[in-house]
Every structure is written in C-alpha cells, then in structure tokens.
C-alpha cells in the first residue's frame, strides 16, 4: 500500500454521523494549529487520537464543544452547526460531555453538588431527582461514599472519576476526553481507565485524546494519529499498531511503545 496516500481516514464508512467536521482550519494568531481537518464520528463509535505534543489533538476536540473557535470549515454536532450562535453552543455543550486533564472540578462545591449543578441549572431537573442521578453515577464510578466531601479531599484518580460522573449526569450523547490520565500518578491511571472501559462497553460515543495505547487497543474502533495540525493516519487499532503506514506514525509509535 502506498505510504502517504490515505485520504479517507475511515470516514466514508460512517453513516448518520453524530459529529461531522469538514475542511476545518484553526489558527492561533499566525500559527496554523489545525489544517484541513475532516472527520466523521459515528454514533457509538470510539475514537482515540494520539500524536506528539503540540500536534493539535487537544485543540481539535476542544473545537467540538467550542472551547476553541475554528475559523474555517464546518463542524456539525448532532445536526447543529457550530457558529457564533451562543444558544446553539450551549445546547451542544449540554449534549457533549468533556473530561479534562486537570479534572477541573469546582473546589467550592461538594462532590454531589458538582454533579447536580449541570442537571439542575441547564436541564432544569428537580434537585431531588438530580441527586438521585448523581448518586447513581457516583456508584458507577465506585466513589459513592465520597459524595459529601470536597474535591480537595480526594486523590487525583478519585477526582477524575468524579469528573467523568459529572459529565455523565448530563446524559451526554458524546464524551470527549482530553488526556484524562496524564496528570495522574501511575497507580491511579488504572482506576480511571477501568471506568472509561465500562463506559465504552455500554456503547458511549467517545473521542479520547490519550497516550494510553493499551486503552486504544482494547476499546477504540479507530485510532487517529495527528502531527503538525493534520490527521496523518487513521485505522482500526490492529492495523494501526501492527502496520503503520506513514513514516511519522512509525516514528511516533517507536518512541512511545
């Protein structure tokens, strides 16, 4: 197979995508951080994005819920195009869960209040119902006993699981993970990955920026490799890791595996 001609990245096989990004560009000042991104994400699809730091992978997923603004091209999430329309942006954000590298829990609120905030204020769910949902998800991420504590009293791994539960409480259609384990101590990475694997098994649509290649192998449908603001290569995990086609991919894999 020719090494650098991959134009499709597996997008054509996707019918009824929940996220569709076409010919999208983004600049930070003069710096062209994302160049001609084309990506379709199917419902229940799980995509892992990897690549060297500065390659634009975090920026890409941050564009999906408009934490970053793209300057050219189109991003459509669940049938709504991302424009400057703030109401649409808020609607999309409610449907797209985001988990950050540094958790970003609200330190002045208890764990359970962190979880109920979104449902109560955005979804207008009654407090009691929101609290029940919150406890349900806290049990799911195996941390229900910490509900009354504050984020500062929890370990990094626990905080990240709370952050995942916080997103789940909004019943999102898609979950974005921005390097969810890279700020964690090694012994805490597994507890977070386990929660993410559970989530994958239940059929959540997930886009995960991570360097955890074991996770990519076991749950991803597609692995994307990004470099210099472009999607260089995309494939199913088996082919991606065993037969990388592009030289840059090979180099990257040789460095991290």
């Amino acid at each position, binding site marked *: 197979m020719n090494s650098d001609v991959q134009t499709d990245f597996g997008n054509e096989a996707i019918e009824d995508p929940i996220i569709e990004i076409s010919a999208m560009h983004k600049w930070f000042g003069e710096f062209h951080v994302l160049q001609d991104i084309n990506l379709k994400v199917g419902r229940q699809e799980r995509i892992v994005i990897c690549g060297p730091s500065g390659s634009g992978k975090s920026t890409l997923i941050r564009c999906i*819920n408009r*934490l970053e603004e793209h300057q050219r091209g189109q991003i459509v999430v669940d049938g709504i195009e991302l424009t400057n329309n*703030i109401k649409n942006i*808020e*609607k999309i*954000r*409610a449907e*797209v*869960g*985001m988990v*950050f590298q*540094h958790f*970003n*829990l*609200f*330190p*002045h609120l208890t764990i359970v209040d962190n979880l109920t*905030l*979104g449902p109560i*204020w*955005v979804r207008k769910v009654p407090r009691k119902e929101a609290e029940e949902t919150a406890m349900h998800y806290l049990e799911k991420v195996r941390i229900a006993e910490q509900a009354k504590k*504050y*984020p*500062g*009293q929890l370990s990094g791994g626990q905080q990240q699981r709370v952050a995942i539960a*916080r*997103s789940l409480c*909004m019943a999102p259609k898609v979950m974005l993970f921005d390097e969810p384990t890279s700020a964690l101590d090694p012994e805490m990475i597994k507890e977070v990955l386990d929660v993410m694997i559970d989530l994958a098994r239940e059929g959540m649509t997930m886009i995960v920026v991570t360097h955890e290649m074991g996770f990519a192998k076991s749950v991803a449908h597609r692995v994307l490799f990004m470099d210099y603001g472009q999607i260089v290569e995309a494939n199913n995990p088996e082919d991606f890791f065993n037969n990388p086609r592009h030289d840059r991919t090979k180099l990257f894999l040789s460095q991290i595996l």
Partner: protein
Amino acid sequence: MSAEQTDRQPVEELKPPAASVGVLGWLRSNLFSTWYNSLLTLAVVYLLWVSVPPFVQWAFVESFWTASGKECLEADSGACWSIIPNNIRFIMFGFYPYQEQWRPGLAVVLLVGLLIFSQFRRNWKKSLLYYWLVGLVVMGILMKGGLGLAPVESTKWGGLPLTLLLSVFGLTAAYPLGIVLALGRQSRLPAIRSLCVVYIELIRGVPLISLLFMSSVVFPLFLPEGVTVNKILRAQVAIILFTAAYIAEVVRGGLQGMARGQYEAAESLGLNYYQTMRLIILPQALKIVIPPSVSILISAFKDTSLVVIIALYDLLKTTQAVLGNPEWMGFSAEAYIFIALVYFVCCYYLSSFSRKIERELDTGY
C-alpha cells in the same frame, strides 16, 4: 528475623537541653539570640518603662470619671474621662431632638442586632432578606418619624447613627456595584469595558474629599431650581461610588486568579455566562479576595468621617463640637481616645467577621 530486630528498641529517653526549653530557653531564642536582638530588647524595655507607667498614672490612677470640666481643670493632673459621660448623648446623637433620642438609639440597637444575626451562616436564608427589609423600614420610621412619631429633619441626624448609616449602606451598596464594575471591565464588549475602565480610573484618581465636595457644592448647581437632593443622600452616593471603584479592582484581581479550567468546566456543562459567574467563578473569586476587600471596607468605614468637611455631624464631628464647648476645651486626648475606641470596636468586628467567614468557607483547596 529475631524479635530484637523487628521491635525497635526505644533509644534511652533524652530530655531536650535545659537551655532550649522553658522560660529561659524562650527568652534566649526570642529576645536575646544575637547581640543586636539583645540590644533591641533592652531598648524596647526601656521605652516601655518610660512610657507605660506615666500613661497608667494619667489614664487610671489620677483620672476623673465623674468630675465636671471645671474640677478637672483645677486639679490639672490626670485624664478627665468625665467628658465622655457628660456629653455622651450629644456625641452619640448630635442635634437630634433631646427628647426623641431614644429613637436613633433604638435604630442603632436594631442595626447592630441585625448585623450580629447576619453573621451566622445558618441564618443565611431568604428570611434574612425579609428581616433586613422590615428592619430598614422600622429604622427609617424611627429616624425620620411618622406613624405617630414626631418628624425629624435629616439635617438634624448626627453622631453614631449617621456614621453607621453612611458606612453600612455605603459598603453594602458599593460591594455589588464593585462586582458589576469588575465583570464589566472584563467584558468582551468594548463599549462596556471602556466605560468601566474610565469610571474606575477616574474615581480612583480623585480623593474622596473632592468627591464629597462635588456632591455637596457642584452637584446642586446642575439641579433645576427648586429641586434639592438630601445632603446625606448625596454624601452617601459619593461614598458608594468611591468605594465601588476600589472594590472593583480587588474583585478583578480575584477573577484573574481563577484558573481557565474553571470557566471551561462550567461552559462545557452548558452553563451560560450568568450561571457560570454566579455559581462557579464569583463564589471562588470573592473568597480569594476576602482579606483585601475587608481592608477596603475598613478604610471606607473610617473614611466616612470625612463627611465633616461638608458639615455633616458624624461621630467625629459631634466629638469636635463638644471640644468647642468652653467647659470641655483642652480635653481632646480623652475624647479622641474614646472615639478611637468606638472606631476600633467596629473595625475589629469587621475583620474578625471576615476571618470567621474565611475559615467557614475553607474547603481545603
């Protein structure tokens, strides 16, 4: 492995060296650790020796507590504290009609009671707002008259009620205004942003005294003939506008101290701007800036005494007026020490309240 190796035998119990504990040790490490510390200690002890006993002598031993001004003058020895009890009603209430002075007194008691009640977090409910509304109406009626009480012109208000009125309302109105200004200064809309910047810089660049002058002398010139705005209200507005500019800058500091991630986390949940600010950003930012805001509130409280220059009889001015009375001329030290104590009690209450709030809001991050 033998038991001796696993069970750690305590080393023979050693006492710390005598020179490092007890009174001697403390003295040595804190007061006489080096030759210049020893020198400083001795100098301070000498200063205390020459200043404290004479002060105690003047303030307590040879002082008068009930004598009239004349007797004090004749004795010419210690402090004449009797200036306070003899003039307390005027110092506290100024020119408020003598027979009616129980009304401002009651209003002050009510205000202090409400302040103390509001201090406890368990009382922070919606009902607190209603208590304050009712309290304010009652205080207003007490001060102004009505409902069978004889009306009293606000030009006769003075002393402690006036000081508390100017500061409590000044501070409670300035704080929200300051927050709005701080948010406005960070706004993405250039018009709002520059308006707030101009306001803040303009007000901060001008002394409070000149604002008070303007409110009392310049502002009435612009009013149509026959329209007057109450002098106290004008001073009050000047104090609010002035304090708000300072509060705004402190709050802005707190907003800038917030991690970008907090905004992002709130936004990614779908919260809108007002929800993000109200629920996530301001509670944290305002907590960070409790110490500097309290500094500003304390200095604003003391600055209310500047209203003397527009001839409002606040606590300081009524005291000065007493000193103008021939009988009590020359006892300014006693009078000012008393006023300083009143101010100190109020400021100390403010700062201890803020420390308490800080402790209670601490969630360990």
